[in-house]
């Protein structure tokens, strides 16, 4: 067993997890409400990216349309809160179920398509969503969108609204990451990965590839939908302009830059999606997206397997040096 500084790799991973959780837990105590709000967005995007990761990272299917599921989740939450005055926390399971079903149904026909063709089919979803939302304006509020109230912390907890929403999102994220971890490390998870690595061999082994693919699509949409519902609650507003094609592309960028087929990758991806555009704007007001592009190129060149893959390689390198 290779040890680094007396700890095995597994122990190091456990230590990192504990430290990460401690940092995540203490963060809102030491930063401003505005930063808490930003980190809440990071958590929300991390959940959405985890969903995309299940599909793209583990199952090998590309989607440029996950912004649509994010929008469906967000509108489910917004309509429930605004029309039926249902408490915000109940909107999350509902958004998850709605997206699971719509993802599965979209997946059934679309998944007969492979690779780039599937990517284009999902792209159609991303392009169509903002306009479809405008058509059903008696429900969605049309271009006006729906304005929501920000929830107060329950039980008289001495937290600001932003701090509370941070912890609420963090708790949801932990549950969902834990569930995804169990899914991937189960029989079903192995089937999902097998379809990515060797579709023909997987089918030969008796795996029902179309069913598994549709199901993965549905679960992936569920994650993104729950993230969308959280996003609506935190931003307190939904409108068709919030869910442009660019959102879907940001998700794909975040998933790839963070690291595909990796749990920590989703978190790094969330950090990238929230902070890199802001940093770019600080560097150049005139051409922020050129700076963003430069960041993207550097990340892709230096870390071709994403931030998570890069960190894993550094870990392996340290382990090798220790071993020799």
């Amino acid at each position, binding site marked *: 067993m290779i040890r680094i500084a007396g700890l095995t790799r597994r122990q190091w991973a456990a230590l990192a997890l504990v430290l990460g959780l401690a940092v995540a837990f203490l963060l809102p105590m030491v930063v401003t409400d505005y930063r808490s709000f930003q980190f809440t967005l990071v958590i929300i995007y991390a959940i959405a990216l985890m969903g995309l990761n299940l599909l793209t990272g583990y199952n090998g299917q590309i989607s440029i349309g996950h912004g649509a599921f994010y929008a469906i989740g967000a509108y489910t939450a917004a309509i429930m809160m605004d029309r039926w005055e249902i408490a915000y926390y109940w909107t999350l399971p509902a958004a998850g179920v709605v997206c699971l079903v719509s993802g599965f149904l979209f997946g059934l026909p679309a998944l007969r398509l492979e690779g780039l063709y599937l990517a284009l089919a999902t792209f159609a979803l991303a392009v169509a969503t903002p306009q479809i939302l405008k058509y059903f304006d008696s429900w969605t509020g049309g271009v006006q*969108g729906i304005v929501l109230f920000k929830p107060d912390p329950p039980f008289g907890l001495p937290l600001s609204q932003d701090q509370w929403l941070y912890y609420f999102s963090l708790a949801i994220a932990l549950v969902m990451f834990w569930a995804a971890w169990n899914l991937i490390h189960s029989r079903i998870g192995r089937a999902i990965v097998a379809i990515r690595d060797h579709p023909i061999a997987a089918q030969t082994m008796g795996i029902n590839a179309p069913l598994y693919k549709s199901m993965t699509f549905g679960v992936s949409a569920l994650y993104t939908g729950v993230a969308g519902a959280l*996003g609506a609650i935190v*931003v307190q*507003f939904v409108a068709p*302009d919030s869910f442009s094609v*660019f959102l879907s592309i940001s998700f794909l960028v975040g998933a790839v830059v963070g690291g595909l087929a990796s749990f920590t990758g989703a978190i790094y991806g969330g950090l990238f999606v929230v902070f890199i555009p802001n940093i770019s704007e600080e560097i150049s007001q005139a051409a922020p997206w050129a700076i963003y592009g430069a960041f993207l190129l550097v990340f892709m060149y230096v870390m071709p397997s994403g931030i998570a893959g890069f960190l894993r390689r550094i870990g392996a390198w340290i382990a090798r040096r220790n071993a020799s």
Partner: protein
Amino acid sequence: MMRMIGRHSAAIFVAAALSAGSAAAANYGPGVTDTEIKLGSTNPFSGPASAYGTIAKAASAYFDKVNAEQGGVNGRKIDFIMRDDGYSPPKTVEQARKLVEQDQVLAMFQNLGTPTNTAIVKYLNAKKVPHLFVATGASKWDQPDKYPWTTGWQPSYQTEAKVYAKYILENLPNAKIGILYQNDDYGKDYLEGFHEGLGDKAKDLIVAEVSYEVTDPTVDSQIISLKDSGADVFFNVTTPKFAAQAIRKAYDIGWHPTQFLNNVSTSKAAVIDPAGVEKAKGIISSYYLKDPTDPQWNDDPAVQAYREFMAQYYPDGDPADLFNIYGYAVAQLMVEVIRKCGDDLTRENLMKQALSVDHFEIATLLPGISVTTGPDDHAALEQLQLQQFDGKEWVLFGDIVGTE
């Protein structure tokens, strides 16, 4: 016992000192020092609506001019922080919070867009941050009870529609009106204002209302059905591409009603020329700014001053772009409001001064139009002047109309 009293009085002394300190500094809100005032704004500098981004840039250039030539306002330079939201409401929320909580601006100024401002209006009002002169034509910003910290700038779509309604009631009392409108907020705002302006007469005078979706390729079929309705007055509530189509189609199928065109689409280059100048002859519209491309203002000192300003402080901007003269005008109002505050630069006083503007004239507004606000009047501009296209250019006619 003695020690306890000593401690107590020390605490009282500290508290007294703190409150005295805050009383002395109470004249300054966040973002203000003896030499600087910070204002913030969210705008689309990227994305589909980035053409509007130039408004804030022109306003910023005007602040540069005031800072350079007059040393700022009452000795304080204006630091105008613009942040890009790409016209995406969630991003607007993030950027607005950054401006308020991190950059610590005194106030928001000229945030652009209806959905984007809708996303932050509650937040800013809850935080009691002045949300001044928003760049949108929606009428919902003038709601003093609901949004006490928000004020509009341009005449709202409803105000404009009422101007046409009034004109029709006075001059075409037996009109049969057909309306074409875009099926969204903007179109419905016009429709609502128009109905309100016609009052009881609305149901007698309006014979047809047809809508189109912004995604439709043409409005040809709508124009045909309007013609078939027998309408002899046409109220055209469309964005530039559709406005040109509607004008051309009506003429081509031999329908020649009296036409009213919303001022979203009065651009000669984008609407009238593509439609055909002879087909647009006689159309009535309205405006409130001097159009820098209109030859009648060529020798106007205000428009000349504007051109010089553009050349010196915003050389990248196009002086012919109406959005630039828009930004130039609204920045002058902001400077006036700050000037009126004197050295009492709290958020409360800024809001008070923004809501007590009395007939403030801006040289690039049409003659006779001025800005007036009040505690119950959160709309800066509510006046327009009618204009008619004579086959070559827009000719202003009649009095200034609208409330103050």
